[in-house]
């Protein structure tokens, strides 16, 4: 075994968690195992490894390789130990002469159709076939080498990340089964029969197939048949470190498998509670950005944004920021600077930035990118339940009977959770999708939604009120639950409200476009179909009534008694790896960590004592307010931690106007992003591979992020923050991120029991983690709501101000896709472009025909905010009147088009509803042309210019 390499024990078949124990004898040793466990796994628990190739713990037993045959007293023949469950009194022999001969015979057959190139094979040292040949003592292949074989079969190298070499395939079906059982995509099959059996990705190559490149097949392959190209290039890793993926809010655990400080591959970690060994194309493969040549490794400074960047030392850059910020505060007042924290950074890094603002800047001008995604979740769930977070763990979905997915597209946005969900749906749970688009979940292999309520964008509240109307007026309310758990007066007034005729499915049809009968049927299913779980995403929050929608969801769950146990709940699918954490850490201008208002004297007192400063008791500025104030010349300095507001925030031209009006913009990031075009100081950040800390995922799970390589910039981000605080005259003192967590725990009741020691011991914990729940809280609101009684809220539907009309007759809704991530800063710097290399506009055939638009045409997309051009794709996933695009590519500028409308409660932008017009065009928009120029003019490097000048002079 390679030292430092984490070896996960593979029992060969799933371990059944049963109460009933069975006692049997294996190789003369008496043992017990849960009923339903295979003989193979029971033997493995004893340490007796029965040879096997087609069996692995993550997959149901299959019984094809025939290496694991055993003898069982009183039974005929030699049954396969993987498919034979343990039985009381069974006497099993796993090693006899007869079995040894059989196993050698089977192995001899395998090797008679396998290349003998072990020494040059990429799986050398990590090949189960090789191991088994050794284990069974194969010494000779008597069939010779002249027989039929597959040695000359052509490789499929089309996938950018892994290779398929059919010559090495042993047809164990592990890849096919993983694709079906774990991923649920059903992209792989076996083509041909008998000896001709070969793995096939449909009738095409891997890249052009249904394959979503999740890596489950590669993970499952026991040989070099499906193997990472990085392993082919680099060889086998020598050490591994368990860490947490830095893409979406699922928070998958991975083993970073390393050679020295070079990553060889990211392998999903079976003991990671969020993903249990599964992965998606981003986390599994798209990590190459971390060492991309675009990474900035040195601080950069410049006087004006039109100047070229100049490299600086950390000391110089920090001193510059401190001097500028101090000057600005002296000149424009204490409130003229602020910071934005990043949901991509660790809890510890975020905590320090908000501490920097509150303690060193002396104001509360800190906000976070959650503002533009899940701020309504925080508001809505805090109001109704008392906690700004989802109620369940992911595993809970395994016990759901009816799943409602609202405004979320899990197969693209949260693929690893989607696989878990689809598995449950294949096992019989019913699905209701509420989404303007026909997302993949509506109909995919072996999954079909019972109801797809394809509503018009912006009418979520009307639709949810209609569902509630049916539940209340048809007597489907779980009255016992409501009486015991909720505020009954509030409930009654809510029930009277939703029962109003204007909230009936028949009346709201005029807004939603949903057939009343469908709404009624869906409501009955959710209310009466057993454990009902709601999962939602940004299609709920990014609206002018985002917070109202979250509360309407909470109302439904409470009315039907679907809160407080496994299988139910209200579950926001958080977008970013640490968006839950960044909110928990006190990133909002009105809240300290743990969601305590800055005006709360007791909380503030606690922080003041610990931090030794007086804190402002008034909330600070939100991001849009900062930009508005900047345009008004009252806000002059901004520290942006790992966020690209110039690409991600709505109404780009307003954002850049605000940035351009500031006197000191500091960007801390991996790359010179769009916002950095407007920056005066650039501080090089560190990727997740360089970080030490924690991320908190959508299930409130605090996962460790462990450093596998030193920060490329020579300084960790938390250290840079300390330096800046000190330069501003405020002392911070931490030797390690664990000490920051200790401070978080000391100041935050829901984190009181969290420490790195505990995280290392348990793997992860879900907050609240404190004296009442020392090992964390998988399910919230179990006996009572955190706020006491669940609070029903009146959710009056108010149509958005953003209206379609003759000038802008279509509704644009935006989102993202599987292979790219948000602003694309990471994924665009990987081979994921193979699947998606530009943002396109999806348009319904009717709307396309009306405008003479064909797939591939360049079209202009215009709103009252701005105009861009992009390629059109005709798609029946859309409904007529609605178009869709993504915002992954800065050159597209999707947010040039989106508007400044936002959620009434939290200012979360209304990304999902913009009135637009689409027409054919033959040119890029003015903004796009200008942006292209600025990509060059605002990103120049002094040393390049110097080199250029030197070259010119030499000529």
């Amino acid at each position, binding site marked *: 075994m390679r030292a430092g390499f984490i070896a996960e024990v593979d029992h060969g078949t799933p371990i059944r968690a049963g109460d009933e124990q069975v006692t049997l004898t294996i190789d003369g040793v008496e043992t017990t195992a849960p009923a339903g466990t295979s003989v193979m796994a029971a033997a493995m628990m004893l340490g007796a490894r029965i040879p096997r190739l087609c069996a692995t713990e993550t997959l149901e*037993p*299959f*019984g*094809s*390789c*025939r290496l694991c*045959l055993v003898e069982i007293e009183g039974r005929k*023949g*030699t049954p*396969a130990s*993987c*498919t*034979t*469950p343990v039985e009381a009194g069974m006497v099993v022999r796993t090693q006899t002469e*007869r079995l040894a*001969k*059989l196993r050698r*015979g*089977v192995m001899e*057959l*395998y090797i*008679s*159709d396998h290349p003998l190139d072990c020494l040059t094979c990429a799986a050398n040292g990590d090949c189960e076939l090789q191991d088994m040949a050794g284990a069974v003592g194969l010494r000779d292949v*008597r*069939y010779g080498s*002249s*027989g*039929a074989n597959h040695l000359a079969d052509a490789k499929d190298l089309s996938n950018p990340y892994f290779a398929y070499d059919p010559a090495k395939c*042993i*047809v164990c*079906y592990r890849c096919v089964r993983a694709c079906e059982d774990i991923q649920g995509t059903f992209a792989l*099959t*076996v083509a*041909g*029969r*008998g*000896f*001709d*059996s070969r793995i096939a990705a449909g009738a095409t190559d891997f890249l052009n197939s249904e394959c979503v490149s999740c890596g489950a097949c590669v993970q499952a392959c026991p040989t070099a048949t499906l193997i990472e190209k990085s392993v082919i290039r680099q060889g086998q890793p020598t050490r591994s470190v368990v860490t947490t993926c830095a893409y979406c809010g699922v928070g998958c655990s991975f083993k970073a498998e390393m050679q020295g400080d070079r990553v060889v591959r990211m392998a999903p970690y079976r003991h990671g509670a969020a993903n249990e060994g599964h992965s998606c194309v981003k986390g599994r493969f798209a990590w190459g950005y971390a060492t991309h040549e675009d990474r900035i490794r040195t601080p950069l400074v410049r006087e004006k944004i039109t100047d070229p960047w100049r490299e600086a030392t950390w000391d110089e850059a920090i001193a510059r920021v401190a001097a500028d910020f101090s000057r600005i505060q002296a000149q424009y007042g204490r409130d003229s600077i602020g910071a934005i924290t990043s949901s991509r950074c660790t809890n510890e890094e975020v905590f320090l930035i908000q501490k920097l603002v509150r303690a060193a800047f002396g104001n509360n001008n800190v906000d976070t990118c959650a503002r533009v995604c899940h701020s309504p979740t925080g508001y809505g769930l805090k109001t109704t339940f008392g906690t700004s977070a989802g109620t369940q763990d992911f595993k809970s979905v395994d016990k759901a009977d009816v799943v409602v997915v609202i405004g979320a597209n899990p197969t693209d946005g949260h693929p690893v959770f989607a696989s878990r969900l689809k598995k449950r749906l294949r096992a019989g749970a019913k699905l209701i999708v509420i989404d303007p688009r026909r997302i993949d979940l509506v109909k995919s292999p072996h999954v079909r939604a019972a109801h797809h309520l394809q509503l018009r964008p912006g009418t979520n509240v009307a639709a949810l009120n209609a569902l509630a109307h049916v539940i209340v007026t048809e007597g489907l309310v779980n009255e016992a639950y409501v009486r015991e758990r909720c505020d009954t007066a509030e409930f009654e007034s809510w029930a009277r409200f939703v029962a109003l005729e204007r909230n009936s499915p028949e009346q709201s049809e005029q807004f939603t476009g949903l057939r009343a009968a469908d709404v009624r049927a869906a409501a009955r299913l959710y209310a009466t179909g057993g454990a009902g779980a709601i999962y939602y995403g940004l299609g709920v929050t990014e609206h002018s009534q985002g917070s109202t929608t979250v509360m309407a969801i909470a109302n439904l769950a409470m009315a039907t008694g679907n809160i407080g146990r496994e299988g139910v709940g209200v579950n926001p699918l958080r977008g970013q790896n640490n968006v839950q954490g960044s909110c928990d850490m006190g990133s909002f201008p009105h809240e300290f960590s743990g969601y305590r208002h800055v005006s709360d004297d007791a909380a503030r007192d606690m922080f003041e004592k610990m931090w030794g400063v007086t804190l402002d008791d008034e909330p600070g500025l939100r991001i849009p307010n900062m930009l508005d104030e900047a345009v008004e010349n009252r806000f002059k300095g901004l520290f942006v931690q790992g966020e690209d507001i110039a690409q991600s925030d709505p109404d780009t031209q307003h954002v850049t106007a605000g940035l351009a009006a500031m006197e000191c913009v500091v960007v801390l990031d991996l790359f010179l992003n769009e916002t950095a075009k407007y920056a005066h100081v650039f501080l090089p950040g560190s990727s997740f591979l360089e970080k030490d800390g924690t991320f908190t995922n959508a299930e409130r799970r605090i996962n460790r992020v462990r450093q596998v390589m030193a920060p490329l910039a020579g300084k960790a981000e938390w250290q840079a923050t300390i330096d800046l605080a000190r330069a501003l005259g405020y002392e911070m003192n931490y030797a390690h991120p664990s000490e920051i967590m200790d401070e978080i725990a000391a100041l935050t009741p829901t984190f009181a029991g969290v420490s790195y020691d505990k995280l290392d011991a348990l793997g992860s914990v879900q907050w609240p983690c404190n004296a009442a729940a020392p090992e964390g809280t998988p399910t919230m609101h179990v006996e009572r709501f955190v706020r006491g009684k669940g609070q029903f809220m009146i959710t009056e539907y108010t149509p958005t101000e953003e209206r379609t009309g003759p000038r802008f007759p279509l509704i644009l809704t935006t989102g993202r896709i599987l292979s790219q991530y948000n602003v694309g800063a990471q994924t665009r710097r990987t081979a994921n472009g193979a699947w998606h290399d530009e943002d396109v506009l999806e348009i319904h055939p009717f709307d396309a025909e009306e405008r003479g638009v064909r797939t591939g045409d360049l079209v202009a997309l215009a709103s009252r905010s701005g105009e861009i051009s992009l390629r059109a794709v005709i798609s029946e996933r859309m409904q007529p009147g609605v178009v869709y695009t993504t915002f992954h590519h800065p050159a597209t500028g999707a947010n040039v088009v989106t508007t400044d409308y936002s959620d009434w409660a939290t200012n979360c932008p209304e990304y999902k509803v913009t009135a637009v017009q689409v027409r054919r065009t033959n040119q890029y928009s003015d903004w796009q042309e200008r942006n292209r120029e600025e990509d060059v003019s605002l990103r120049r490097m002094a040393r390049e210019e110097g080199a250029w000048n030197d070259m010119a002079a030499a000529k």
Partner: protein
Amino acid sequence: MSLRIFIPRDAAALSVGADAVAREIAADARRRGLQIEIVRTGSRGMLWLEPLVEVETSAGRIGYGPVSPSDVPALFDAGFHVGGAHARALGRIDALDWMRRQNRVTFARVGATDPLSLEDYRAHGGLRGLERARNMRGADIVEAVRASGLRGRGGAGFPAGIKWKTVHDAGADQKYIVCNADEGDSGTFADRMLMEGDPFLLIEGMAIAGRAVGATSGFIYIRSEYPHAFRTMCEAIARAEQAGVIGASAPGAGGPFRLEARLGAGAYICGEETSLLDSLEGKRGIVRAKPPLPAVHGLFGKPTVVNNVLTLAAVPSILSDGPDAYAAYGVGRSRGTMPFQIAGNVKRGGLVELPFGATLRDLIEDFGGGTRTGRPVRAVQVGGPLGAYLPAAQLDTPLDYEALAAIGAMLGHGGIVVFDDTVDMAKQARFAFEFCAKESCGKCTPCRIGAVRGVETVDRIVAGVERETNLALLEDLNQVMTDGSLCAMGGLTPMPVMSALRHFPEDFHRAAQRPAMPEATE
């Protein structure tokens, strides 16, 4: 009353021109102004006499065969329609030795009745079993089947009553009856003949099975090469539903029983019960590991009875005449009758239903009349392509499960293929591997790779390449396939190979050392 003339619509009869004969008879009768009614029936199973035309006379059914269209005018001239004498006349069908010496229980109506006439079926004793079953508890029906000693006719010979009891005892919201009609063994055709000749019998048997175990839905998986059987079954199901024998409105406390015929996927392996279930579910047909047994975790994961056509078709008589009457036939633990199918190099091929215990010699010599070529019988393959080759010396072996197992053979689905002394048994052994290689589902290693290596190894042996080493290798390979294969496909392939090697070692010598032989004729 018009004259009734019976002409088979059985696929075997059709293949030798039964339709043309029927057309010619109808046309000729019209020309002659004769009022006739042509009834299309199943086949009597005397395949050398097809197309076999029968007429109803006061003296019983008189047969003429084989009839070609050109014979028709002369037959009319001879007054065949009233039983007149003619060179093709065979006399009373039920008096023919071939028919008289059989014990037709399952095949009692086949060839005699109109397969799609429910009245005809009822008039000939049909539906009595189902009617009786409807007044019995499921457990009592299961017990009757157990008491009859009925064993699975698909090949494995597993006691049907025990399988049914497992399904009966399994708690589930849905159970299924699946009929395996993917009849793929070489030299077998009994399932096809039954489905084409007496489809209501199978429907009745399945309805009884449904009643017995509590299944409300059934499927008949018919091999794709049986289009006529498929059409007949579909039509019979529709008529049975219309008549309320099965379907949502079926009478009795057993509740509804829906039945559907499905066309197979065109693979031999889909006749293996678990592959069949996968295929029926719409998947690629590959073998499932057992346990779990289909009786517990079968079609769509629900408890399922999977039985062969002949097994299910034996059930109605067990119910109507009682288990004892059925068990009175047969020997030892092989009770009842078996529809044997004689094929290959034989003078008179066809279907012979006899109690277990008859010998191969009875069938091949008495019924079959020896080889068609007139040469001596050298080898007989019993039980399909995976069955053993028996030498002439073993022709007196009684045909029952245990006696055959004792000599390293098996009865399978009752197919008997005869070879004369020109057969090259090394080629037959090679063919066994070839067949396995072609038809293997490819799931398990011994079958997927072993079959191909088997062909290559036999070739080396026959070519005299390292003969002793390769013989030892062949022996080892056969052991790996027998003990290691997932299903009977790979597990039984060594049976024909080893029996050929055991009984006919001389054929495995170098080809050059043997005198040239004429091509073997089946």
